[in-house]
């Protein structure tokens, strides 16, 4: 008797825990409500199956518990039953997959009007870059990185001169404006994730990754690093502040451009004598094909 009861308790306990637990997702603050919907859908489909299976075993262990001298039923196969189960499961799977793929299609299709900004990660802090007046980000390369140019912006690329650099971990974004986040790391893998936006993506050194979203709620949102990046991983924090458009613009205008920061560095150039990179040691790279 103990076994069926315990199985029942485990099954029901799980359901009860799900519904009464105070721990559930943090309220959303982006356009990715569809993701939440897909999760809910998945919950119902799989939840029903879970409860069904556990209740069925519990019942079996009660109904068919050992009786001396009894013999089990002998029916090695039942093609009809097996087919039905296959078909039903396939339907269940399709019911979750189809909406999922549809939302994924949205997720990877960046809208035309998305503004771009870049997140640059390094062990263990976040920095950000906005395109300047020309609306274009300058190209970058790890070899340009030094104290004066922590972002590694190509000094010869004029698109980069007016890029706006934010070096202190906190970035502002305007509300309701779709943004494409370009993700770049200068050392190891990191992952730019904001729980309320339901979106995250790894940043891979040697390439630039991206995702897009639209912030829909004004407020401050913690940026966490979601990819193990060394001992400081757990402490790699940043902040996204979603502002009204005007607040955002005001904030942006205060930030220095690349040209400004270079000029500043020039003026006290002897401080930057410990340059780690010298132009000669790594020849310019050209594209191969």
């Amino acid at each position, binding site marked *: 008797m103990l076994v069926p009861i315990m199985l029942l308790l485990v099954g029901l306990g799980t359901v009860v825990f799900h519904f009464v637990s105070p721990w559930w997702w943090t309220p959303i603050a982006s356009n990715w409500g569809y993701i939440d919907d897909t999760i809910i859908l998945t919950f119902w489909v799989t939840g029903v199956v879970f409860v069904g299976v556990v209740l069925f075993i519990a019942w079996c262990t009660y109904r068919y518990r050992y009786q001396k001298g009894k013999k089990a039923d002998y029916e090695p196969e039942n093609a009809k039953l097996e087919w039905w189960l296959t078909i039903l499961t396939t339907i269940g799977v399709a019911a979750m997959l189809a909406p999922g793929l549809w939302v994924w299609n949205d997720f990877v299709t960046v809208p035309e009007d998305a503004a*771009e900004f870049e997140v640059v990660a390094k062990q263990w802090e976040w920095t950000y870059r906005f395109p300047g007046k020309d609306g*274009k*980000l300058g*190209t*970058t*390369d790890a070899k340009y990185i030094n104290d004066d140019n922590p972002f590694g912006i*190509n000094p010869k*690329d004029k*698109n980069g001169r007016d890029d706006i650099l934010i070096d202190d971990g906190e970035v502002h974004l305007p509300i309701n404006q779709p943004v494409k986040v*370009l993700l*770049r790391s200068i050392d190891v893998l990191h992952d730019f994730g904001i729980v309320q936006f339901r979106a995250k993506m790894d940043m891979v050194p*040697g*390439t*630039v*990754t991206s995702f897009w979203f639209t912030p829909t709620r004004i407020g401050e949102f913690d940026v966490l690093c979601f990819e193990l990046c060394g001992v400081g991983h757990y402490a790699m924090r940043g902040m996204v502040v979603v502002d009204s458009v005007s607040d955002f613009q005001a904030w942006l205008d205060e930030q220095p451009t690349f040209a400004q920061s270079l000029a500043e560095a020039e003026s006290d150039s002897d401080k930057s004598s410990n340059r780690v990179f010298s132009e000669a040691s790594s020849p310019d*790279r*050209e*594209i191969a*094909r």
Partner: protein
Amino acid sequence: MAHAEAHVEGQQHPLGIYFKIWALLFVLSTLSYLVDYYNFEGYLRWTLILLFMFMKAGLIISVFMHMLWERLALVYAIALPTIALMVFVFLMTNEADNTFLLRGIYFLGLGGS
């Protein structure tokens, strides 16, 4: 069937076929070498390289390694798992292309962003 077969289970074939294949392998190797020697370029080059490569590989596997005479149960057991490799290779060509493209755009400033 001969009852000794359970003990002698090897492959015996007339030597002639081995010599023929041997010669053929020489010819094919020469041909693939000539692809380079005469500096064929582009798709022609790649097609020829692959063609000769697969012919050589096929001959070695089927005749020298006796696959031709093995029972299909063995042949398929060895051949089918390589499908996984082909999927892997195919996907990695896409992955590598993607990386290359992104590097071109963001590090070398080629094309729009």
